């Protein structure tokens, strides 16, 4: 799915340059679950943004499904994001004025899906995360765990090939964290997704196939223990 070769990302900060990724090489297979751990500021989120086409590397190659994301035009990257990549954020990032169903529907807008079909897919996505009865609720009317479920439904409604999750349980209590982790694992197994999950939480990371550690912009694989979903 992904093949990163010698990827470096530098940021200008004041007069100096901060290197977030240093010559990173990584291959992520189709259907793999990779957990990325590391201390704050060591490049975890930057790696996720590069994988999602939200940012471009300063140098190196980011191959995704046969395309080098570093070389594609912005419109092409946007199209890839719309069709193939789902995002889950630590703070859920739901639009507060839209209902749960409308938030999920927003992921189908760039695909030009017709309204009737959108409604069917939104209903199915919300039911798959156990929120079929909360479709008309605004995010402010939902608990943190429910909001993250809505965000997961929004990420999955377009049937992406990759799910990129940035600290999806970071804002949740322990019980809810376990629920969300279990849900992600269930979806990963059921849908055959490629899942890249950034987390500080070792309990969550342990459920992944591989655990990669980011340290000062460099990546090392720590664990490769679990089988891929059948």
């Amino acid at each position, binding site marked *: 799915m992904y093949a990163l070769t010698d990827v470096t990302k530098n940021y200008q900060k004041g007069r100096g340059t901060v290197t977030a990724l240093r010559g990173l090489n990584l291959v992520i297979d189709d259907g793999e679950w990779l957990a990325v751990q590391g201390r704050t500021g060591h490049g975890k*989120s930057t790696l996720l*943004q590069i994988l*999602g086409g*939200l*940012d471009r590397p300063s140098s190196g190659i980011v191959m995704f499904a046969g395309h080098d994301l570093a070389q594609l035009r912005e*419109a092409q990257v*946007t*199209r890839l*994001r*719309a*069709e193939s990549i789902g*995002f889950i*954020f*630590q*703070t859920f*990032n739901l*639009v*507060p*004025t*839209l209902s749960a169903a*409308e938030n999920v*529907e*927003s*992921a189908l*807008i*760039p*695909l030009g899906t017709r*309204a009737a079909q959108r409604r069917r897919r939104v209903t199915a996505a919300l039911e798959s995360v156990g929120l079929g009865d909360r479709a008309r609720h605004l995010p402010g009317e939902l608990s943190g765990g429910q909001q993250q479920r809505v965000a997961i439904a*929004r990420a999955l409604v*377009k049937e992406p090939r990759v799910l990129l999750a940035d600290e999806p349980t970071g804002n949740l209590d322990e019980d809810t964290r376990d629920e969300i982790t279990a849900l992600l694992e269930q979806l990963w197994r059921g849908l055959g997704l490629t899942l890249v999950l950034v987390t500080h939480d070792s309990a969550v990371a342990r459920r992944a196939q591989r655990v990669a550690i980011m340290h000062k912009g460099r990546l090392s694989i720590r664990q490769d223990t679990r089988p891929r979903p059948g």
Partner: protein
Amino acid sequence: MFFLTYLRRELRRRMRQAVVTSTGLAVGVGLVITVTALSSGVRAAQGQVLGALFGVGTDITVTTATAPASGPGQITPEPYAQHFDSLSSPTQGTMRGSAVAAVARLRDVSAAAGGLTLTEIKSMVPADNVPPPSSFQPPVQLGVAGVDLGHGALGPLAAARLVSGRAFATGQADADVTLADSAYAAAQRLKVGSAVTIAGTRFTVIGIVRQEPGSNAPQLYIPMARAQALAKLAGLVNIVYVQAASAADVAAVTSEISRLLPSARVTSSASLASAVAGSLKTTAQLARSLGTWLAVLALLAAVAVASLLTLAAVARRAPEFGTLKALGWRSGRITAQVVGETIAMGIAGAAAGVALGLAGAFAVSAAAPRLTATVQTADSGSGGFGGNLGAGGGVFHAIIGGPVQTFANPNATHTVAVLFTAPVTVGVIVLAVILAIAGALVAGSFGGWRISRLRPAEALTRVA
């Protein structure tokens, strides 16, 4: 529809900003409508004044600058009482009738008509060394216009309305018939069929006409040939009324006439307008300068406020837009959403602005006092046919002393009172709505520009 749902919810969420933006645009639009209505009202009032003073259909008048010595001449008291009844052109020079034809042949001239604006003076000079009898009346002067019957649409009667009787017929060029001004007729109790004496000749009143208020109209109109004969000005005119081929040609015609008749005084409505003074002129200047700037500044301020608020909103919503970009929304789609929101605010502002503007225009119309316009009409030569009616009394007064009863304004100025209204046209409303929406578009474009520069990774970083 997702677009409208999202738009409506966002406007509701940011209601205060929406109200501020819409109110700003409404004030700008309201001022534009009010000031435009004010300007329209002032233009209409000026047109009314100039139309009254100049005559409908007349673009230019030509008179001679140098007034020859004329009038009753030197009067020497005799041992017996003397009665005078003369018709003359005391303050304006004369031109040959051929000048009218020459002007009419000019390239940009549509029509030209000659005329005579004369002063009739009736007086009695008491016998030398004898006290005036008890029946002594002060001298009377009145304006008499000689009308070219072949050009009824151009000349002193062009703007006149027939109140009773009938107008001149073409065959009455040599008839002793007259039309009386309604005010003079009322004062002298003249009716159709009454008789008046002009230069010792008895004329029959065949009609009563009413001119525009303040037009400084003559009291009597007689056929041109009779005026020439009675004033001993055979084949001469002292004013030429000119109609240009189009309004755009007036300046060119003025130049052409000046070249053709170098010694003539050529007056157009534009030069007459420059001579207008009084509260009408002050209001016009106020509407043009302060009013226009106020409206422009208010509109610019409203657009600036709307733009700044939109930019601030985009900055606040950066995480939201970053998320949408992460979901695959194109920048153009997000920009359209933001522009849609500002246009909705613009439409609300336009609606409120139209209401404000109509209220403003109504208030101006209701509260505005009657405006007055003062125009130099005599020696300055700014006026049209009425321009020479004032000074004859002065000449006579110098000869015999004592007051002169005049029916024309004895001063060299003429004041017209105008009822002011501020009309609002559909065109102005449409323009104001377009301005409001354009302002909203500008504000939305700033937001769109900011969104297009927003990198999704950068926007999402603000969330963390």
